[in-house]
């Protein structure tokens, strides 16, 4: 991990609305120049977390620290963070240029300086020549760019982005992901990004924070989160997985579907109940008699790069990704190398 200083630190943040707990004891820090993504399903509390940092919500308990100073009671307009809102929230009564210049005019900057900075921003977001246009005349992607420019022009220490690409089509979203990432690296600004799109999170982030029902489930690099999910929820939310109940016989040996599998995990104790997670692309399809398990192909879907097959091994139906297709009804053998078997503590029911 980088050794940059901590920009934002959330300490024991909880938030309740009318007695319903939305955030439960959140502890999180974000380092300078880091690209952190809050990832989770809708209602997990990620947007509330962002709004608490922006100053639009007040935590029920806990503190928000900014460069070590408590800013919990500081109103939004005095915080050195800027927000890119989900549906852009561009001012419809102002044209593109005046939207971008809004924050600078509030700061009473000189006319010439404002013009210079706005031009620079229009250039950065590839919107040169759009200054006089009304924001209503822009496409969704263009409005998105203006919203980003309007925030970045204030040179915030931290940029908060609330599902900024949610309303764009897939192709544009992919383009904007790369652009945002390169902007962030170019400007060296800390980004805190909220999304429910796991692929977006994996592509852009330095650090991913997986949240559900107001809790942080796991904090880690995209690779850690994907390869070593902390529990079944994370495994299921990040990419596709087969999750099956099993028993840890002893260190490096797990039993599921009535078969003992060698694995690489240890420290769960003996005969302990565990969740076993296996990624669909990690299951190998072999001849019927040489696999660790045998099963029947129930369905086949063509997904472009690979085929997705559902294979029934009696106790469990496995989702398997493979570039070679097995016909429906055929009997196959299944095998997993020890390294690809992920063992996790069983989830508490409430966290699912």
């Amino acid at each position, binding site marked *: 991990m980088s050794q940059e200083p901590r920009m934002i630190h959330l300490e024991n943040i909880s938030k309740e609305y009318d007695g319903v707990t939305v955030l439960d004891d959140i502890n999180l820090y974000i380092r300078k120049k880091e690209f952190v993504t809050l990832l989770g399903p809708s209602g997990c509390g990620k947007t509330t977390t962002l709004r608490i940092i922006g100053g639009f919500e007040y935590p029920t308990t806990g503190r928000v620290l900014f460069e070590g100073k408590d800013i919990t009671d500081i109103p939004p*307009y005095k915080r050195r963070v800027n*927000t890119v*809102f*989900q*549906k852009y929230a561009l*001012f419809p*009564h102002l044209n593109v240029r005046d939207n971008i210049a809004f*924050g600078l005019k*509030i700061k009473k900057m000189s006319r010439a300086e404002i013009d210079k900075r706005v031009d620079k921003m229009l250039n950065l977001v590839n919107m040169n020549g759009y200054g006089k246009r009304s924001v209503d005349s822009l496409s969704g992607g263009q409005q998105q760019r203006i919203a980003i420019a309007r925030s970045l022009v*204030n040179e915030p220490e931290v940029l908060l982005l609330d599902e900024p690409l949610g309303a764009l089509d897939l192709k544009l979203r992919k383009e904007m992901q790369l652009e945002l990432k390169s902007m962030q690296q170019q400007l060296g600004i800390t980004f805190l990004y909220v999304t429910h799109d796991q692929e977006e999170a994996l592509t852009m982030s330095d650090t991913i924070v997986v949240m559900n029902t107001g809790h942080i489930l796991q904090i880690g690099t995209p690779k850690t989160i994907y390869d070593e999910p902390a529990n079944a929820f994370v495994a299921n939310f990040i990419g596709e997985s087969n999750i099956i109940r099993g028993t840890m016989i002893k260190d490096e040996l797990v039993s599921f579907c009535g078969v003992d599998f060698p694995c690489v995990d240890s420290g769960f104790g003996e005969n302990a109940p565990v969740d076993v997670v296996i990624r669909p692309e990690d299951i190998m399809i072999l001849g019927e008699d040489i696999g660790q398990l045998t099963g029947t192909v129930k369905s086949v879907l063509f997904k472009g790069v690979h085929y997705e097959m559902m294979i029934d091994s009696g106790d469990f139906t496995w989702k398997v990704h493979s570039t070679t297709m097995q016909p429906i009804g055929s009997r196959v053998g299944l095998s997993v190398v020890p390294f690809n078997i992920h063992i996790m503590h069983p989830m508490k029911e409430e966290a699912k």
Partner: protein
Amino acid sequence: MTNLKLPAWAGWAMALGLALFIGMVALSVRRNHGVKRSLFATPYTLWMMIFTILPCILIGYYALTDANGRLTLDNFRSFWDSNYIMRENLRAVAGDEMAATVARGSVNVDTLVYSLWMAFLCTVVSLVLGYPAALFMADRKMKLGSTLVVLFIIPMWMNFLLRTIAWMSLLEDNGLINAFFDWVGMGRVQLMYNQEAVLLGMVYNFLPFMVFPIYTSLSKMDPKLAEAAQDLGCNSFRTLYKVTMPLSLPGVISGITMVFMPSVTTFFIPRVLGGGNTRMFGDLIESTFKTAGDWNLGSALSLIMMILILISLSILRKADPNGEGGGII
């Protein structure tokens, strides 16, 4: 009505109009081989013709004719100079010299100017009082907001004449307020029969028409816009000034229209609360028709009023070209 003086051609014109209308409906049914959807608009079209278009034509006719049905501009001259007819009559009897001694009577013009001034005051006061109320009502964080909406609506369920008369019992010398003043030992004060009482009655009656269009445009506003303004460095006051107020402008314009227009033509309120000391253009038109029985001058005054309203409408429409203020204009 004893003094109904329809022109001789009115009966024929109505018969012709009706025949034309029935003919067009019949033609439409035949041409479309059955009833077209637009045919259902017929009752409304008929209603509009009888109660809006026909009266307008009649007003125009009366305004441009004299009591004998001859074309004349005397009614408009009488508007400018209320002694015009008297002077001309004198001229016919006693000659130019005597006629010159009759000065110009400015009562009609003065009443119009006074009405415009009162309407302007009423609009300004309503705006100043109504905007904060609308802001308060549209604020999602205020639990009292929706209660306030209901409180504003409830009085509107009652006829405005009743509400105005209710003010009398509050303001009169033996009224509730004076009873209170007396009780605390301040002595009774003359509250009614002055311009302030009329203004109070007008503001009270027209305030909801200012509040609701503004409230509508404010509650349609995305709350994220105010948050964005704060995010970009605006405190609450600046957010109001830079974002909320400009975005509620259509509602404000619509509110101004809905208060100013009926304020100019207000009558009854000045009579009840002003006690005849203040006279507005609405009262003047009414008394010209009913007391003086002069339909021609009354029509001319109405026509002038209508033209003024149309001019103000077109000015206001320029300020709100999309008609976003609830489509009232």
